[in-house]
């Protein structure tokens, strides 16, 4: 590839691809500017007098270069072969060039006031942002950006005498912590100008194929100082990069300079990564940074309010979120009735939320994937962190057991709210109890240079007792074994085996009808994922996944000897889901990337089971059972299968904007059965069976992404539509517990949700934060004509997650080196409510006649939280760092409605009452530490 110029400049121009203009600029800036500067003149003022008669453009340009000593740069094959005829008489050079290029798709820019670049207009616009294009002094503009280093370090890699057939070389890099010599996974390596960005993989390595010559590299990882460096690629080479940890002084953690533009380049629409730093910068509830609270500030993610478990994504139910911690399935993401999430922020390495495009390696849930990865690869140094709060405390330690070979991660949290409840005047409340604990553990073992085995476990227990009337407890137990093995640099195997258990009990502790009711679900999962990077433009994931869903028997037992409750034990349906998948992330060109995948899943319900057959034409109820089919242990009862195509495309419009689209189809074979206002931890899971077919969703997304100010500002506008089949909805007054024929209590239907999400984020500077606004609707239609059953007459109605307007504003203000103020404002339309339209008398009682389901709405929800962090704590030393966080949840004491209910009060007055779970401001203080 030859870059044409009559200037006799002896440089290797082989890397001047049409996609490498930034590289071209850097090259000139650091190595050649002197040569050009010597001939500098003001090209704007050059006057041209020339007669052109049927000459091709190239000849004219050559003539101009020679006659007026103007350095012109272009590629020969860009120039059209057409001849032109024209005359110029003392006309400025830009005018002459404009006229010469008038009927072509070429344009030009004056570079450094002393040379001219001629290139296709689209390339110039894309490669030179508006700022570059209009500014005269590109060199100063480039080098003296406020946040860029004034001197770029240049590193030569490879050997000069080696050649490549296509002019491209392979650069293999390895990242490590420069201080602790520990590996770094997940760092982002960006090659400016080539629009290339990769992440270091599980081997802490990355690989790039790129043209020889000089490239500007930018390496970023949260918690580490960004590295910006020029690299002169002479041939294929290895590169070991050290990143230095970011100092913890607040003024030093300001991310300055150009920020990550992965939101533009990523081929996955609707994907968000959160690090512990992101999470900890959020205003905290009761002093505890929280994963779920953080993702609730993102567009499209919502909750029905305080006291509700889980989260809702784009109008979906909470059971439509695939939640994993170190690959083990999480059945319930909430502690303490949703006030805390189950994730200990001190042990988290990274959280990834997929709410738009879901790659084929994930399946089984139709709305989103929340993939939480834990730390556990610290093989060199002991570290501890934690926090002590008024209601909850936490701690985490990382330590090598065998240096460079075996590491251990331990974490734990405990909540102790009883002492606060004792101060509440309501006797029912002050005799109540709400507590939880959880424990994380992870042992990682390096298996030679190319393998790692990690064993993770998690255990949590929650208990809630309300006065002496009733109580709940629920447990999660997870165990996962993950073996990552680099078979060769282009072929990585990731094998994981996991076990997840979710159990809950509800109990009534007094009286002759005191009882304990138990339910639970177990998941056994085997997944083998192959990561193949043999082709430079392809990243392939292929694998198999097997999930076994084995519920515990539902049990009812007397609470104590006084109880006369009859014990009951009933089996629940088992299910076996297997899937194979293939996903290829393809870089078609520098502007177009695809992620295309296919997942095929096959599911079967397994015995023991009894399938009731009902009389046709009338609603299913226990009186209409005409026969039953009995199946033995693990005998196949019914099976379903489905192909899930996944497709996502990103078209990079400019260096700072892109357009993305995606389509997914997903089959879901498990359902969370609930009939309460909001999901509770005692809700139970039901696998698909003869009557509850798999939930199938088609998700469509499109989004426009645009960054400003060198990626310091991120914006996006996304639209989505989802249609669903086989949504399970409860009938009126369902009996869900101790019921071995749930099909008499539940109906199936269809659903649709759609919305528009707007997001703007300021990533750097003294003030950072984001605003997300979502307009979203979610409707369902439940009708079974064959059995003459319907909800709301079989018409579309709002799902209980239909909240049209959702706004979240998060801000962090770094006041000085040690003080940070954060706030979070949330607004959401009140969720749907089933309310009465009339009253009537029964005896002397007045009761309400409730109208259609979800016909009314709760009052709108809004809340402001603030937190103030003082970095300098009690024992600040070089190694020991601590801070105090003061926070206020619900600053203006808004009594947001959890529900509206209708009854007589103690004065026998009938009316509506608003229940607020948190009806006042809630201050807290937490002491955080790390060493």
């Amino acid at each position, binding site marked *: 590839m030859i870059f044409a110029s009559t200037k006799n400049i002896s440089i290797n121009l082989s890397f001047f691809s049409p996609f490498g203009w930034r590289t071209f600029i850097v090259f000139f800036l650091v190595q050649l500017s002197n040569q050009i500067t010597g001939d500098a003149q003001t090209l704007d003022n050059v006057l041209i007098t020339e007669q052109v008669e049927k000459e091709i453009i190239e000849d004219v340009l050559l003539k101009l270069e020679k006659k007026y000593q103007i350095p012109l740069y272009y590629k020969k094959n860009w120039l059209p072969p057409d001849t032109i005829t024209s005359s110029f008489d003392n006309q400025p050079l830009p005018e002459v060039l404009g006229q010469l290029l008038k009927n072509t798709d070429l344009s030009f820019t004056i570079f450094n006031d002393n040379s001219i670049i001629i290139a296709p207009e689209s390339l110039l616009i894309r490669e030179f942002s508006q700022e570059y294009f209009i500014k005269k002094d590109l060199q100063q503009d480039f080098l003296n950006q406020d946040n860029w280093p004034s001197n770029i370090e240049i590193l030569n890699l490879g050997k000069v005498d080696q050649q490549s057939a296509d002019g491209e070389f392979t650069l293999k890099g390895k990242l490590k912590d420069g201080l602790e010599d520990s590996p770094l996974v997940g760092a982002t390596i960006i090659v400016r100008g080539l629009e290339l960005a990769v992440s270091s993989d599980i081997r802490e390595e990355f690989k790039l194929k790129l043209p020889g010559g000089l490239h500007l590299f930018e390496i970023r990882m949260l918690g580490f100082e960004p590295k910006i460096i020029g690299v002169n690629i002479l041939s294929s080479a290895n590169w070991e990069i050290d990143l230095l940890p970011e100092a913890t002084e607040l003024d030093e953690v300001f991310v300055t300079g150009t920020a990550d533009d992965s939101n533009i380049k990523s081929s996955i629409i609707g994907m968000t990564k959160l690090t512990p730093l992101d999470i900890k910068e959020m205003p905290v509830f009761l002093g505890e940074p929280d994963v779920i609270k953080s993702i609730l500030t993102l567009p499209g993610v919502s909750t029905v309010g305080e006291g509700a478990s889980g989260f809702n994504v784009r109008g979906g139910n909470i059971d439509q979120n695939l939640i994993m911690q170190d690959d083990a399935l999480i059945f319930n993401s909430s502690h303490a009735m949703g006030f805390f999430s189950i994730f200990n922020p001190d042990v988290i390495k990274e959280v990834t939320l997929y709410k738009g495009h879901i790659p084929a390696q994930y399946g089984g849930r139709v709305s989103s994937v929340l993939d939480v990865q834990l730390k556990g690869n610290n093989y060199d140094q002991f570290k501890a962190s934690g926090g002590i709060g008024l209601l909850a405390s936490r701690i985490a330690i990382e330590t090598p057991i065998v240096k460079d070979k075996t590491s251990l991660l331990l974490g734990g949290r405990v909540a102790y709210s009883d002492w606060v409840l004792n*101060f509440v005047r309501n006797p029912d409340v002050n005799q109540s109890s709400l507590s939880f604990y959880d424990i994380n553990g992870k042992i990682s073992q390096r298996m030679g240079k190319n393998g790692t085995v990690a064993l993770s476990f998690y255990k949590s227990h929650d208990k809630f007792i309300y006065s002496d009337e009733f109580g709940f407890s629920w447990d999660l137990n997870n165990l996962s074994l993950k073996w990552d093995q680099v078979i060769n640099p282009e072929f990585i195997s990731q094998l994981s085996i996991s076990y997840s258990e979710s159990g809950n009990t509800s109990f009534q502790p007094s009286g002759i009808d005191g009882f304990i009711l138990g339910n639970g679900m177990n998941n056994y999962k085997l997944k083998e994922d192959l990561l193949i990077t043999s082709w430079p433009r392809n990243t392939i994931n292929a694998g198999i996944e097997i999930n076994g869903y084995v519920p515990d028997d539902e049990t009812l037992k007397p609470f104590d000897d006084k109880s006369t409750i009859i014990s009951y034990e009933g089996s629940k349906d088992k299910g076996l889901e297997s899937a194979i998948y293939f996903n290829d992330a393809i870089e078609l060109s520098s502007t177009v990337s695809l992620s295309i995948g296919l997942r095929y899943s096959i599911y079967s319900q397994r015995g023991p089971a009894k399938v009731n057959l009902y009389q046709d034409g009338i609603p299913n109820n226990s009186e209409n059972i005409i026969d039953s089919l009995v199946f033995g242990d693990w005998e196949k009862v019914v099976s379903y299968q489905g192909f899930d195509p996944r497709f996502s495309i990103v078209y990079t419009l400019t260096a700072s904007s892109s357009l993305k689209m995606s389509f997914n189809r997903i089959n879901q074979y498990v359902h969370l059965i609930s009939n309460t206002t909001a999901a509770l931890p005692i809700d139970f899971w039901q696998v698909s069976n003869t009557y509850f077919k798999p939930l199938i969703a088609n998700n469509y997304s499109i989004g426009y992404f645009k960054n400003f100010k060198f990626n310091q500002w991120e914006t996006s506008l996304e639209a989505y539509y989802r249609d669903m089949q086989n949504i399970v909805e409860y009938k009126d007054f369902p009996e869900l517990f101790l019921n071995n024929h749930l099909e008499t209590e539940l109906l199936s239907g269809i659903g649709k949700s759609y919305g528009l999400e707007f997001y703007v984020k300021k990533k750097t500077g003294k003030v950072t934060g984001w605003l997300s606004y979502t307009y979203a609707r979610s409707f369902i239609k439940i009708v079974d004509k064959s059995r003459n059953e319907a909800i709301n007459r079989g018409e579309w109605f709002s799902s209980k997650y239909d909240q049209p307007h959702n706004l979240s504003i998060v801000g962090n203000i770094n006041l000085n080196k040690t003080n940070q103020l954060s706030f979070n404002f949330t607004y959401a339309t009140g969720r749907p409510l089933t309310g009465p339209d009339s009253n009537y008398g029964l005896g002397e009682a007045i009761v309400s006649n409730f109208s259609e389901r979800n016909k009314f709405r709760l009052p709108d929800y809004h809340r402001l939280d603030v937190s103030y962090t003082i970095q300098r704590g009690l024992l600040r030393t070089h190694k020991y760092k601590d801070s105090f966080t003061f926070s206020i949840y619900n600053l203006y004491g808004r009594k947001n409605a959890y529900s509206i209910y209708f009854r007589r009060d103690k004065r026998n007055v009938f009316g509506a009452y608003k229940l607020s779970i948190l009806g006042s401001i809630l201050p807290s203080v937490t002491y955080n530490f790390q060493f």
Partner: protein
Amino acid sequence: MPLKLLTYCLIIFISTTNCVEPYEFKPKEAGNFLVVDGGITQVDDINRIRLTTSTKYGTTTSASPIENASIKLVNSNKEFEYFINEGDGYYAHCGDSLKVEVGDSYYIEIDINENKYRSDPQTLPIPIDPDSITYKINYRSEINTIGNEVTFENIDIFINTPINIKGEITRLKWKVDESWSFTERKCSPLHNPATCYMSRKLNSDEFIIYSSEAITGNYLPDKLIGYKKILDRVEFIEKHYFNVHQFTLTEAAYDYWEKMVKIANPSGDIFDLPPAQLTGNVHNINDKDEIVLGYFEVVAKSTVRVALYRSDILPLTVKRKGYLCAVGKYVPACCACLVLDISSTDRPDYW
């Protein structure tokens, strides 16, 4: 110091939290539905049904009675007897020509203008007679409307009854009423003090039901079915009865009342089940989509009662201040007890 201060702040804020408050709920539209309320029992007494229409939620007007209907009670042999229109929406079955008997099946037919309604046939179950009533005198506490905890003297009423007779699941509903006598003070030389008998339903806005499904044993002891706040000393000067009416329900009737409990007595916490429209067992035979509210009950009734005297509730009353009708005070009811709309000079049979 900051920690201590914050702790106090936290306690103050939480302890002053008022999580429940009245809410103005104003639906734009109102359903106007027929309501059937009442039933028949095997007891040789007048059985009543009231027909009304529902009123718009939030309006203060009482139910609109339907006075132009005719109601017919029909048994399994298609024998029937019409109810007598007593006015104000009440219709009475006297049993002159059709006796209600245990084991027989009954339904009603209602004619209102051109519309005809019919209830599902129900078999009157075998009554289960309760053994006894017991009571416990105690103090109760509750939070009043301004958020303060108040303690009051109270009597809890318990029923003791057999269940699961012959292995059959027992389904019960209770209503409790109280009655007491009161003798006027001699207010003038010519005044001849009368004795009045007061009668009132207890906890009338609550539905107390029970099912022995999933319960072992054949006896239900000490089932709390009502409570009495002791606020008026007059009620316990003389004899005071608690009368418990135990109704044995059909399975269908129990299902209805179980649902009614869920929507009429929500606990108001996060564990409440979502409410829904509850229709009963009466249907428009020409228009199956018409919503008819209420329930026509075919139930077996048994009554048991207990009498309390002033001495039984000592020492609670001795703590109280002076006698309401003491000389020197003027309270109209002390001289003319019939001014109270719950009073009568007719002495109850059981007195």
